[in-house]
């Protein structure tokens, strides 16, 4: 353990065991004042668990914690962590949806009380939001449950940086950008730099390697509960990083494209008029992967939900031909059945197919579960383990497996890769392409422009309507961004259904 005197936090030999799973196997980690430290690693590497130890919500089995040169191991808990200036934005959101934004700020600050506290809380959160996410559009009096997931993430991040009677010295951000739009993610990353300049350290966890390389000082790579590499970000490239993480894939470079040259003769599966009208309808055919782009909350999700509801007697303006399956990136609220095993979480999507004579066949059920464990590489020894024993990214794989397994004609993917590591993501996109080649129609909503490269065509949404349709060949980040603010590019506007990529 080096530099114990001038380092902010020193974790020594942290180990944590969950039943048979060794989540952390003796981790040493040092955080310096005023640095932005990235922690990366495959799904289930132990990143979130390590952060839970650091913030004091999880007691390690063994190991020591020292903050500002003082040993804090004994009696370390959240309150102590807060008192020492350590804050955390958890991977799964930690706001109370029934409370207003400023009330959620009060929850974090024990000292925010006495006469006039609501005024002070409002002022605090407004200032933080304005500084981190200029133009955020969030009212401090809004009830959190009424906010979109991206807005809630913004509130939680802003809250973590507010200061009352306790200092802020270290803020842990566990995959914050996975539920933020591209713009807000960018704002956040720039802010962490400025914060570092003021001496506030940040730990930044992300599966988006580009963010990591561009915006952090140091990178710690975890693998299977251990730290396997520590580098200065400047010394790394994406390829190097992927190699250290031990995931075998050539990253985002090899965005696969359609293999067969099927054209406009294939049947139209989805034909939707987005809710706010506009001149462009969303049309998707069998065999296609169609992207929905734009800033978060501009009607993409509503369009997907419209498509989902249509075969089940949904509203007007939507024609959907075939069975549908939906994958949501908001796991706890829209995906996971927390009391069930991993296997049951997969098979709920295909009950009818597994039934023999009206009842589920246990053999067929466990065979299906095991098949999908291998196909999407769920990190678990046994699909009968509870779903909550999986790391966030692995839970997400289970949800994708559920949608694939049910054999629906149309896959509606709502930010499906949230929290999935690069290697797995690559494989999953290959699977998605394979499904499309097999005649499926895929609608993919993502706020990560990189992921749009896997689409044949992209519709960009703005204020509930489609502003532009972009073919794969014409897709540039810049163009998507401009369309996201309602500025259309004349040349590409009516490119007529399909694009001839490849």
């Amino acid at each position, binding site marked *: 353990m080096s530099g114990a005197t001038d380092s902010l936090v020193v974790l020594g030999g942290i180990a944590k065991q969950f039943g048979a799973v060794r989540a952390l196997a003796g981790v040493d980690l040092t955080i310096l004042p005023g640095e932005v430290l990235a922690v990366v690693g495959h799904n289930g590497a132990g990143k979130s668990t390590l952060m839970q130890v650091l913030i004091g919500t999880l007691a390690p089995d063994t190991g020591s914690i020292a903050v500002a040169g003082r040993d804090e191991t004994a009696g370390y808990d959240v309150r102590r962590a807060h008192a020492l200036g350590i804050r955390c934005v958890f991977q799964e959101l930690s706001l109370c949806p029934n409370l207003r934004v400023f009330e959620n700020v009060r929850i974090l600050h024990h000292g925010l009380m006495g006469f006039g506290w609501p005024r002070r809380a409002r002022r605090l959160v407004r200032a933080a939001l304005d500084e981190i996410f200029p133009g955020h559009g969030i009212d401090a009096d809004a009830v959190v449950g009424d906010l979109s997931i991206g807005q809630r993430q913004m509130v939680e991040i802003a809250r973590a940086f507010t200061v009352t009677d306790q200092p802020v010295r270290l803020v842990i951000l566990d995959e914050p950008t996975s539920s933020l739009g591209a713009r807000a993610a960018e704002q956040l990353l720039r802010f962490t730099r400025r914060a570092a300049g003021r001496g506030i350290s940040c730990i930044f966890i992300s599966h988006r390697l580009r963010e990591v390389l561009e915006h952090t000082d140091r990178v710690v790579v975890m693998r299977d509960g251990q730290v396997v590499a520590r580098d200065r970000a400047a010394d790394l490239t994406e390829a190097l990083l992927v190699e250290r993480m031990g995931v075998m894939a050539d990253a985002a470079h090899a965005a696969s494209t359609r293999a067969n040259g099927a054209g406009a003769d294939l049947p139209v599966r989805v034909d939707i008029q987005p809710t706010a009208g506009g001149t462009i309808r969303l049309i998707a055919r069998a065999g296609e992967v169609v992207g929905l782009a734009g800033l978060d909350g501009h009607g993409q999700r509503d369009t997907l939900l419209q498509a989902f509801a249509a075969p089940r007697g949904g509203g007007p303006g939507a024609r959907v031909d075939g069975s*549908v399956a939906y994958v949501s990136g908001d796991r706890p609220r*829209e995906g*996971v059945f927390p009391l069930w095993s991993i296997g049951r979480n997969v098979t709920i999507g295909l009950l009818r197919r597994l039934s023999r004579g009206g009842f*589920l066949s246990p053999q067929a059920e466990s065979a299906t579960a095991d098949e999908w464990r291998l196909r999407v590489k769920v990190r678990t020894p046994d699909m009968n383990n509870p779903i909550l024993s999986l790391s966030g990214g692995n839970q997400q794989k289970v949800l994708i497996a559920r949608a694939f397994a049910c054999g629906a004609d149309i896959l509606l993917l709502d930010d499906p890769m949230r929290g999935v590591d690069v290697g797995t993501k690559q494989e999953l996109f290959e699977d998605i392409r394979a499904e499309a080649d097999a005649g499926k129609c895929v609608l993919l909503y993502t706020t990560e422009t990189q992921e749009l490269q896997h689409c044949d065509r992209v519709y960009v949404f703005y204020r509930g309507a489609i502003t532009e349709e972009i073919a794969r060949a014409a897709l540039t980040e810049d163009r998507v961004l401009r369309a996201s603010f309602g500025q259309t590019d004349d040349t590409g506007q009516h490119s007529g259904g399909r694009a001839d990529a490849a």
Partner: protein
Amino acid sequence: MNRRWLDANPWVWSLIGAVLVWGLTVASVEGRGGMETLSTALGFATFYVIVGIGQMLVISAGPGNIDLSIPSVMMLSGYLSMGVMHAQDAGLVLGVLVALGVGLGAGIANVVLIRGLNIPPMIATLAAGFVMQSMTIAYSRGSTAKPAPLLLQFSLARVLGVPVIALLFLAVAGVVAFVLARSSFGRSVLAIGQNARAAYLAGVRIPRTMAAVYLVSSVLASVAGLLLAAYSGGASLNMAEDFLLMSIAVVVLGGTAISGGQATVAGVWSASLFLYLIVTMLNVLGVGAGLRYVITGLIIIGVLAVSKSRPA
């Protein structure tokens, strides 16, 4: 019996409780009537079980789902079915059909209020129960309320000392347990109970499943009303009074999660036996009214506390 197995089978605790209470009762009277006590308990527990199974399905369909109309359905079904039977075997079939009809009607009313008008289930079923109680009171004036002799015999019949209705509903409980574990319907109920939004997005048919759950609960309550009216030789206005709280108590003591998504059918049986045997014990020991209530309450809380595996 390791801890993990116990966690997965929470009904064991109330069964242990039942056995202890039974042993204590029998010991207190020098072993007199042990088997008869058990046989009687099986008979009465059956009525709790019938409504308990329905209540269990409702409760496991998610937070806030509770059927408070059960006693009113029992009352209305008991009265109307006895009314059309006129104590004649010839009216038996009609009487049974009327009872089932009451159950279906009540179920539909509940579903319309809950899903159609979006009223919280607790209030919706309470209000529906009020209306049914009124109907029973209006109907009961001057009506015949005695069962067909065949039905009376059936409700009292025993095989080797075991009540036939107990055997029948042991079988029903088995079927329900199987349906919950292995059918599309059962999985759908439990999925909705854990996370309704996720269930919707996973393609679970929420409207039809929820409707089915409330219908089953009401129909089971109407069957319980029919059989209880027969068993007691006739319907009376307040015959179902203690079934409101009991139907909830047997479900939760039996190990079903009140927050939904998980159900324990065996627990309904063991908790029903347990609660009835507590009554027996207190009666046999001749405990006074006040103390009796205190002991009952403490036992309920105690069993619940030991059966919960993980303290904070």
